[in-house]
């Protein structure tokens, strides 16, 4: 997220573009250590203690740097200098979010396509869904749909300049999202108890990995949500609610992806 959207107006009045930020460098160092640590694991086994240590250092540096990145005041160029076809009325950040989502569609498309490819090769009718119970998945569908609704409520509250409305709606979203994850955790734990693990067979592999990728998107969304709640508490977004709108775009997308995953992995 580029923080230039969040600045108040008086800083924009005169020329204050910044060109320096150490955080991209720090984030990358964290990523490097994290990946070196990760490389030591082969199908769950770690060869020596160096790798877990590197993993932890990387995670720590990455997290601190991300916080630094998010908290930094940074002024980018305004943009929209004249010609903006076909995005005349879509400002930079929103354009960026839409384009990112387009790429994410292909990412999930590849995952879903892969699952279907494997299932066709396996024999479509011989394949049974991994979870024996549809109920947790169904509950999660309702939880996510409701949370999409509460994000819209947050945007409406922001337009009405209602600080508590924004905060409460976002907190509700957060709890609905957490509910989704807890429910999924219980369900997965149940499956693990029955001896089903990622490596059990190709059916469990596709189930855990694809829904796991979706779960990672949910976690990412919730981290952004916590950050929004903190800022909303201090009265942000009443003047400028665009960030909530962009978060909503992402959140709806995650919701829609689930609407594809749910039937594919629970019902069919």
């Amino acid at each position, binding site marked *: 997220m580029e923080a230039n959207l969040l600045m108040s107006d008086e800083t924009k009045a005169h020329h204050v573009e910044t060109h320096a930020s150490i955080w991209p460098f720090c984030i990358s160092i964290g990523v490097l250590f994290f*990946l070196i640590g990760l*490389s030591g694991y082969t199908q769950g086994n770690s060869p020596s203690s160096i790798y877990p240590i590197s993993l932890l250092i990387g995670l720590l540096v990455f997290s601190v740097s991300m916080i630094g990145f998010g908290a930094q005041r940074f002024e980018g160029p305004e943009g929209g200098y004249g010609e903006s076809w076909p995005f005349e009325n879509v400002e*930079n950040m929103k354009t960026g979010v839409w384009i990112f989502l387009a790429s994410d569609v292909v990412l999930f498309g590849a995952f879903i396509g*892969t699952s279907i490819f494997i299932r066709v090769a396996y024999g479509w009718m011989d394949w049974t869904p991994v979870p024996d119970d549809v109920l947790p998945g169904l509950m999660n569908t309702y939880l996510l749909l409701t949370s999409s609704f509460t994000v819209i409520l947050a945007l409406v509250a922001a337009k009405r300049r209602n600080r508590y409305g924004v905060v409460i709606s976002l907190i509700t979203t957060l709890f609905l999202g957490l509910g989704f994850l807890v429910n999924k955790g219980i369900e997965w734990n149940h499956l693990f108890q029955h001896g089903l693990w990622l490596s059990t067979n190709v059916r469990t592999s596709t189930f*855990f*990995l694809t829904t796991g990728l979706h779960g990672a998107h949910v976690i990412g969304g919730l981290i952004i949500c916590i950050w929004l709640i903190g800022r909303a508490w201090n009265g942000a977004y009443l003047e400028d609610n665009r960030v909530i709108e962009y978060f909503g775009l992402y959140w709806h997308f995650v919701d829609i992806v689930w609407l594809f995953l749910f039937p594919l992995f629970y019902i069919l």
Partner: protein
Amino acid sequence: MNKILQTDGGYSDGHGLPPMSSVKRWLVTTNHKDIGILYIITSLFFLVMGGVLALLIRLQLWLPRAPGEGLLSPFAYNQSVTAHGLIMVFWFLSPFAFGLANYIVPLQIGAKDLAFPRLNALSYWLYLISGILLGISFFQGGTFNGGWTVYAPLNLPTFTPQVGATSAVLALFIFSVAITSGSVNFLTTIHRMRAKGMTLFNMPLFTWTILLTVWMMLFAFAALLAALMILSADRILGTTYFSSTGTQGSLLWTHLFWFFGHPEVYIVFFPALGAMAEIFQTFTGKRIVGRKWFIAALVLVTVQSFGVWMHHMFLTGINLEVKTLFMITTIGISLPFDLMVFSLIYTLIKGRIQFTTPFLFAFGGLILFIIGGITGVFLGAVVLDYEFRGTYWVVAHFHYVMVGGVTGLVAGIYYWFPKITGRMYDEFLGKVSFVLYFIGFNLLYFPLFIAWETPRRVFTYAPSLIPWHQMATIGGFILASSFAVMLYNFYVSISRGEESGPCPWKYASTLEWSLPSPPPLENWEGTPTYENGKLEFLPDNIKTDGGEPTHER
């Protein structure tokens, strides 16, 4: 003192940026020109790394070897061919083009910077650490050694148990993340931040090719990202996507990889094509012939590039109907390139051609691309493709196309060198480097067509082919020497070259040449506009008085 290091002296307001001579400057910068320079230098480093591996391969191929003979063990040889391919395609070619694009594209369209400068810096640093991780992987029991196509199931720990192989996969993964964030940034910038009057049609051709490149990157690299996530999970968590023989894991990988892999060819080649188009126009003193058709052809290729991937799989379990379909799309995608080649050739007519180094490289690059294209038609005929698969015909063909693309980018780096550094390169050394390049290139790759019956990635071959392989090895060293001359030329010229002024070229027409060399930190005072049909700079205050909202809500 280097000219390039002094540029800050003239600008009182560095906006928190230390001067260019300080190391800190390069760690904290988010400016598109600085990051462009970082990309170019880093990618040249990877060129040297990939080039050294290539020379090792060529030395191993000097004679057909028995096991244990020659410089490299079989394991080291497989690592070399794999890492050479990965480094050249991923860590050199695209980032080299991205470096030029970072520097030039905002200048060409009239933007002060990319839309998200910090994200741009992040893309660069992730690219750098991905390359460092690949370097580290050599020391973790050996890097990945299953070929740059990373075919399954050789890519699984059962067959490549080295920790370094996992690192290489993770390096590729994080590289894809860097590319994706870079694509989002460029797409937003080019679509949103053009000067008045700079409509899409009016954009310079280099910007056009970059725009289409990043569109392809956005989708192609997302597919690769998915493939690499699954592969990482297979390697690290033990999922069984690619190891399940009952569900054709091997075929699954080839689909995922080539869905990315074929657009990647155009991703690599387009920026070179754009640079060649700019250079042809500048040094022939002619506007490109059929500009509208040229752009239409580019767009057509971009769209079609996602519908040809199975022509890499004619021998990999697809049926006749699908083969026929992909044979047709493959021919379909070759035709727009014919048009672009003709367009460049006809641009020469009635020109006043100046044989400067950039033009020589662009002209030479076009010749090499034509040879690469003609030999590609051979591969489009499925019956021939069956026999060429896995042989040096394929190797020679794609080196003519890909390294032909490098030729175009080298032309670009000579062309924009005066803009980036403020000084001229040495024209004589430049011409020497071109002669070495062109001779070395053809001596390296043309004999491979003649020795095409050699299987790929082996170091035993029929003794009758020895002369051709030795010729190629000599050519490889000549080509390498050309890069050495080029780098020496740049190194010397940065501090001692003649001052170039804003525009050293007689017929240059794009916006970047109207700025001082190198351009100031924020590119220009005032606002560039093409509103009245030609470039003008409006004073800053007119912009605010003119009622353009700087902050809409």
